[in-house]
């Protein structure tokens, strides 16, 4: 089931109604939400339901083991078990064919023939998200900083809660478990905010991202040799906006739907395209993923505590993992490498300033900020070419053609420019616009508010181009 469909709207109405009706029997309410989450997940492919059930049982068991065992050796054994189980499942279902094909490529370089099996495995939607979430759960328990689920039902719901199941955000135990353990509220919290989030998500996903994909990005990245170099530049920026609208739009929908069920889901984006350096960018973009990488990859590698060069290496390795997490393809690894190098260079700049004794707290002048913003956006857009292109070779060919002013071909559609501008406006002022909308609706009489929300929703859907571009992060 995808979010902006009649099917999902019906599913949600039924789920929410029964959930609120039985809220006083909290156990039954949670069980109902869990069943609904599994029905939602099975809509993608019922065969992968067994996988999430297995992951839930293994990690719950590991969590119980980590909290009951007293010895350090015992805790390490349970942690190792959970890591092997989680990474094993992820590796098999997401990366088996990648390694199989890559091994075949490597063998052919040496003149050997290696026909390793290609598994016709379904790629379970959201496996990367809930696997990382479960790893965080177990590692936090090992470190003593996490919360243990009170029972299997709470943990299963923590893993499978459908608004955030297939595309994140990656929640920590402290985000959701206390909410599941507490009594259900007797009223629906922040309905206005929920409505504004849902409408925001609808516009970003169904209108902006779909328009940019179907009227520019898909065609240009598909056959860049047909397009002029200017069109390629525009498509690169258009994709940068498309992926932001797509991903943040889905998260907005997830947060709004969670609120309507009485659950607060953490924010995942904070004006990412306002960043003036690489470090800031990763504090603002996909916040739950970047903080996961920091806490479970970067810090265990030593973080910044083992000297400058080790810090740069740790940053690069962390971003390579980030790239690989996004997909079983060398192009994602390349994307991660670009960001890793950018982060390392940023860190080098900070270390240089400290070494020179420069005032780190002195604010940068506006011209410096403007140039820094341009540089950061250029780096982000350039890396996106690898993210979107079919493969590494196609990405380099795209970049080569982009940098050839004489490359002739079809241009780009005029409407793409205002669409890109709207994307940047949403990045800078989206939350302010949502707050204004909430304020406006709260000034209306109670009965008129749903009319305003519905009318706004219909206006948004009226602008929707034909077709819905596939959600980018479902592949992860």
């Amino acid at each position, binding site marked *: 089931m995808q979010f902006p469909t009649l099917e999902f709207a019906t599913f949600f109405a039924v789920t929410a109604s029964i959930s609120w009706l039985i809220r006083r029997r909290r156990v039954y309410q949670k069980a109902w939400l869990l069943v609904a989450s599994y029905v939602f997940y099975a809509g993608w492919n019922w065969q992968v339901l067994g996988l999430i059930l297995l992951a839930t049982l293994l990690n719950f068991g590991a969590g119980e083991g980590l909290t009951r065992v007293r010895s350090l050796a015992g805790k390490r054994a349970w942690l190792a078990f959970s890591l092997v189980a989680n990474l094993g499942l992820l590796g098999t279902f997401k990366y088996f064919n990648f390694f199989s094909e890559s091994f075949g490529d490597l063998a052919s370089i040496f003149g050997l023939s290696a*026909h390793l099996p290609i598994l016709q495995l379904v790629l379970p939607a959201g496996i990367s998200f809930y696997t990382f979430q479960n790893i965080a759960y177990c590692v936090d328990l090992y470190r003593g900083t996490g919360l243990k689920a009170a029972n299997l039902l709470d943990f299963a719901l923590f893993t499978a809660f459908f608004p955030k199941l297939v595309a994140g955000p990656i929640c920590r135990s402290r985000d959701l478990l206390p909410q599941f353990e507490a009594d259900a509220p007797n009223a*629906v919290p922040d309905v206005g905010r929920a409505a504004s989030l849902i409408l925001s998500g609808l516009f970003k996903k169904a209108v902006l991202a779909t328009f940019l994909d179907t009227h520019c990005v898909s065609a240009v990245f598909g*056959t860049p040799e047909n397009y002029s170099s200017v069109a390629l530049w525009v498509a690169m920026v258009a994709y940068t906006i498309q992926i932001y609208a797509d991903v943040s739009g889905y998260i907005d929908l997830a947060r709004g739907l969670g609120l309507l069920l009485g659950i607060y889901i953490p924010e995942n984006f904070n004006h990412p395209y306002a960043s003036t350096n690489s470090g800031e960018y*990763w504090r603002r973009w996909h916040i739950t993923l970047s903080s996961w990488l920091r806490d479970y990859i970067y810090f265990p590698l030593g973080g910044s505590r083992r000297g400058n060069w080790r810090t740069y290496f740790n940053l690069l390795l962390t971003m390579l993992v980030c790239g690989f997490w996004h997909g079983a393809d060398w192009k994602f690894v390349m994307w991660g490498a670009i960001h890793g190098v950018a982060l390392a260079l940023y860190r080098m700049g900070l270390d240089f300033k400290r070494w020179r004794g420069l005032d780190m707290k002195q604010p940068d002048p506006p011209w410096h900020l403007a140039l820094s913003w341009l540089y950061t956006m250029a780096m982000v857009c350039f890396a996106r070419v690898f993210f979107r292109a079919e*493969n590494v070779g196609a990405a380099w060919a795209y970049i080569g053609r982009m940098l050839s002013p004489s490359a002739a071909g079809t241009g780009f*559609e005029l409407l793409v420019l205002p669409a890109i501008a709207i994307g940047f406006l949403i990045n800078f002022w989206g939350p302010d616009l949502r707050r204004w909308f909430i304020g406006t609706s709260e000034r209306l009489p109670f009965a008129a508010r749903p009319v305003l929300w519905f009318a706004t929703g219909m206006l948004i859907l009226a602008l929707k181009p034909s077709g819905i571009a596939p959600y980018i992060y479902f592949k992860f």
Partner: protein
Amino acid sequence: MLDKYKPIDTTPTTLTPIAWVMAAQWLLLLALYVIFARDFSSWSEAGEPALSRRAIPVAHATLAVSRSLGIVQLREAVQQAVYGTYDKPVTLAGTAHVGAQRGSAANSHGAAVPPPIQQANLQAAPGRALPQPKRVLIVGASSIQEELGIAVERAVKQYKGIEVQRLGRISSGLARPDYFDWPGKLQELLDQFHPDLVIAQWGGNDCQSLSNKDGSVVANYGTPQWDEEYTRRVKAAIKQIHDTGANAVFIGMPFMKNSNFSNKVSHMNKVTEAACVDRGAVYLPLWDLTIDEQGKLRTAVTVDGKRHMMRLSDGIHFSEAGAEYVADQLCQRLAQYFTLVPAK
């Protein structure tokens, strides 16, 4: 470098009575069903048989209510106004395809266009030359917009002197001209590009009721009237192509992972193939390329000596390698009907 973990704030700013929210929710859902009645109807017809049998009467009743309130017509008008704006783009910073002079029986190079291939002449008789296409138009739905279309375009361009234009549109087909008017768009492309060969693939999104441009239903899916009307539409598309002097090639739908969907597209293929045979268009099947010896979905292909997954996880669309393989096979089959000279 990064901010430390901060717990999220779960303190509500406002609280709204549950009964009010539920009532509003159900009223809005009802309004959605009435406004999107056409989509509900299509969904019910395209769904699993057990579900469809129950949902179709409700969907048709909702559609009737929506039509009587004028909502369907209003929505179609708004949709056409919006799509009309989106689909007539102003293009900047490029050189568009140069259109050829339109002659009644001349192609872009002034040479006489050979008559459309008759099905009886599928194989070249010894000594008889096959037509050599110079301008190829590729049209279809999501597969043509994405991997398969890209691969076919690249494969065809490898032959000497061929210009290609391609248009694929997600979720489109011949069933719903109220959603995307393929006959209109096809005519526009024929008039602008003047191809001498059109390669088309429709069907994946056509397993639903057939409607007119105004949204009125012509034939329900699964009825003999549907077969008749869909055949007429395919023949009409072939006639549109032949009237400009171009040859028409229809690509069949591949085998699908979902057995229900597979049965539907198999029927679609039979209808399309019969229409092609009747009207003298070429029909190139994909079925045999996408099924293994056990009659199941073919999982892997070998491209450049390396094995790759053939389809994406949805079991519908092709992977990059799968599309490349299929495109290569299609070109080999095309070479039985057309002269394709390798560029190198």
